[in-house]
């Protein structure tokens, strides 16, 4: 028999986990918060899991990325390769490229980790985009969630930028070509371009510092900022409570679903395992970025069919489609890459940031919303979204115009002209078709006895910006009279 008293023995719980939790709570507190967190109700809809795909892709990125940092050496001092990949024997290359090839051929599990990391990066951005589409089309960005929308857009930008920084690190032919384009786009910014490019690259291309700087940005700065923003993003989801679709006793005043503990937490964990499984399968079975075939970067060399990773495709595509148009404004040369490169990116992300305010302005709807819209119930927003998606899809496809031409035996010039026409013609057609489709679906709902919720009128007259002053005066007139 043990010497513990009966009273003490009675207090001891048989469950080790519970004992550990009590021990922790007695010293740190926090059971109160944990209870509310675990008791949170999460509404059930498959589309609410899309953001989690991005979260778990990020987890995989962190895990594989840490492994890669053990073996990768950034640096641009020139070394001679003596590793096990024979076709590069005795070839002069940068330290960064050498260690990336060594990582792929001579480090245990190095290549599979690199491939999982790269696939995870592609998935990370892709699932952010899909998640953003869900938020956009269901109106989940409306008050009170505008700030969280902006954090999400910021995360998208940082994810794209960090992906670019990542594949530029390896200093192979393809990544160097991408950096050269990024350098040129930076240069094209009027007035500040040359200064910015020198600041970023540490001098004339290929700057002496760029690989070292990208390394710090890629493995430390941006992951830390992304992790912090993801934390805030999730905290705000908890703070605002999750949105839900209407119906089945769901109102603006409640959340219907399942509690985090035990059901939702396990589903989420299961999803994490499956994301990791899909990525591991891709990393193990499908080759990605075979840098040993591309060779070390030399500014004098370039390969045909040089494409960026998919999430940079829209920028590459717009550079390919935009005509060689240079203007002089206020005594400054504005080179052609400025419009499809810097300006388009600025407009894209500017519009994304501003969308919640823009929609509130045009609909006059500034109320708090916890119930989601069905996309068909907001035909204008939905058709604008589809038009925008078609625009960027065409741009992304245009980035592969040369490969499309050779694959289908077409003239690259004809493909280019077709894409130029499509990028202008397709978005309005997509908008009209979507608008029509939304109205048809709504009509079917009404015929089926379902009354769609009221939707605010879109104040199209606001587009006539030259009348804003007169409109403001008119709206002020009754109040001054009263």
């Amino acid at each position: 028999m043990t010497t513990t008293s009966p009273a003490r023995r009675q207090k001891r719980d048989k469950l080790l986990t519970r004992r550990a939790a009590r021990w922790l709570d007695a010293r740190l507190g926090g059971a109160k918060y944990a209870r509310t967190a675990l008791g949170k109700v999460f509404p059930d809809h498959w589309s609410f899991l899309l953001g989690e795909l991005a979260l778990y892709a990020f987890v995989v990125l962190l895990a594989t990325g840490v492994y890669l940092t053990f073996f990768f050496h950034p640096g641009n001092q020139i070394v001679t390769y003596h590793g096990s990949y024979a076709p590069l024997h005795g070839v002069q290359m940068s330290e960064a490229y050498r260690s990336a090839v060594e990582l792929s051929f001579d480090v245990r599990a190095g290549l599979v980790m690199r491939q999982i990391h790269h696939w995870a990066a592609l998935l990370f951005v892709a699932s952010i985009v899909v998640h953003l589409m869900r938020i956009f089309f269901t109106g989940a960005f409306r008050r009170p969630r505008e700030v969280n929308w902006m954090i999400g857009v910021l995360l998208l930008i940082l994810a794209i930028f960090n992906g670019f920084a990542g594949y530029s690190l390896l200093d192979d032919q393809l990544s160097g070509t991408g950096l050269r384009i990024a350098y040129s786009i930076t240069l094209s910014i009027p007035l500040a371009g040359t200064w910015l490019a020198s600041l970023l690259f540490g001098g004339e291309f290929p700057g002496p510092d760029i690989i070292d700087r990208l390394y710090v940005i890629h493995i430390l700065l941006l992951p830390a900022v992304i992790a912090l923003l993801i934390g805030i993003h999730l905290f705000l989801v908890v703070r605002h409570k999750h949105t839900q679709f209407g119906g089945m006793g769901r109102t603006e005043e409640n959340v219907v679903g399942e509690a985090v503990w035990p059901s939702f937490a396990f589903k989420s964990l299961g999803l994490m395992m499956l994301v990791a499984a899909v990525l591991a399968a891709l990393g193990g079975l499908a080759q990605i970025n075979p840098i040993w075939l591309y060779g070390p970067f030399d500014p004098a060399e370039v390969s045909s069919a040089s494409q960026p990773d998919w999430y940079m495709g829209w920028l590459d595509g717009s550079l390919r489609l935009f005509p060689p148009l240079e203007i002089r404004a206020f005594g400054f040369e504005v080179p052609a890459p400025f419009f499809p490169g810097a300006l388009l990116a600025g407009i894209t992300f500017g519009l994304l940031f501003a969308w919640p305010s823009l929609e509130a302005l045009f609909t006059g709807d500034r109320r708090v919303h916890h119930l989601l819209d069905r996309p068909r119930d907001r035909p204008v927003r939905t058709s604008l979204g589809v038009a925008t998606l078609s625009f960027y899809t065409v741009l992304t496809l245009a980035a592969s115009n040369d490969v499309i031409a050779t694959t289908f035996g077409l003239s690259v010039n004809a493909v280019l002209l077709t894409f130029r026409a499509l990028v202008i013609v397709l978005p309005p057609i997509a908008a009209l078709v979507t608008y029509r489709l939304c109205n048809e679906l709504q009509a079917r709902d009404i015929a089926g006895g379902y009354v769609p919720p009221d939707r605010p009128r879109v104040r199209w007259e606001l587009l006539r910006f030259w009348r804003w002053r007169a409109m403001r005066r008119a709206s002020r007139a009754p109040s001054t009279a009263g």
Partner: protein
Amino acid sequence: MIRPRLLRLVMLVPLVAAGLYLVTGTSTARGAEHGDTGRGRELYLTGCSSCHGIHGKGVEANGEQRGPSLEHAGPAITNYMLTTGRMPLANSEDRPVRKDPAYDTEQIRDLIAYVSTLGEGPAIPDVDITTGDLAAGGELYRANCQPCHSASGAGGALSYGRAAPQLSKATPTQIGSAIRTGPGQMPVFGPDTLSSHEVDSIARYVKYLEHPDDRGGVSLGRLGPIPEGFLIWVLGVGLLIVICTWIGGRTRNRREVEPQP
């Protein structure tokens, strides 16, 4: 009346004669260094002269050139064009692309012999990939060839429907001939630009690219990030959305309500 067996025997006679002729014919040709210019001329007149002219000076019709002059073509380009099946063209307006050769080795040798009589031109290079240096070939390939043929040898687009071909089917001699003569849009790399050892090295690297050290799984056509992006959207995002609908759609039995603050 002739008996059927006899008829069959009679029919065998020309076959045997043809066979004997073939055997003796090829054996004499193998012995000779060059093909027969007379037979080459016959083949030339039937297969080539409509575009290149009866005397190999090219043909111009309605101000447009149907075929270039072959006066300084020489054996290398003739060998390249005929062994890759790019020539003869069915239609003078077609672009020459790789197909099965229309002539056998013997006939090609005869045609080369005939074309060589029209004027001087680069000789068929003697390419030996076993003496080539793989790594040096890779560096030369990346400096000189990949801008059009792509880093992996998959080929690439040129302007107005022209294209640099995929290199995987090219033989070392064809690679060397193309380097030395610059068929189509390709520039000529003469002995002053690339030594014959360098040509050997490039050919060795090009042959290596046919079956490169392809670790990491399925190679996805070696077309770079396009197939990779396609795969992540179709298989990555597509499959995971299916998984999401599977995980997210099975909660009908338990519901809890949390009031908004």
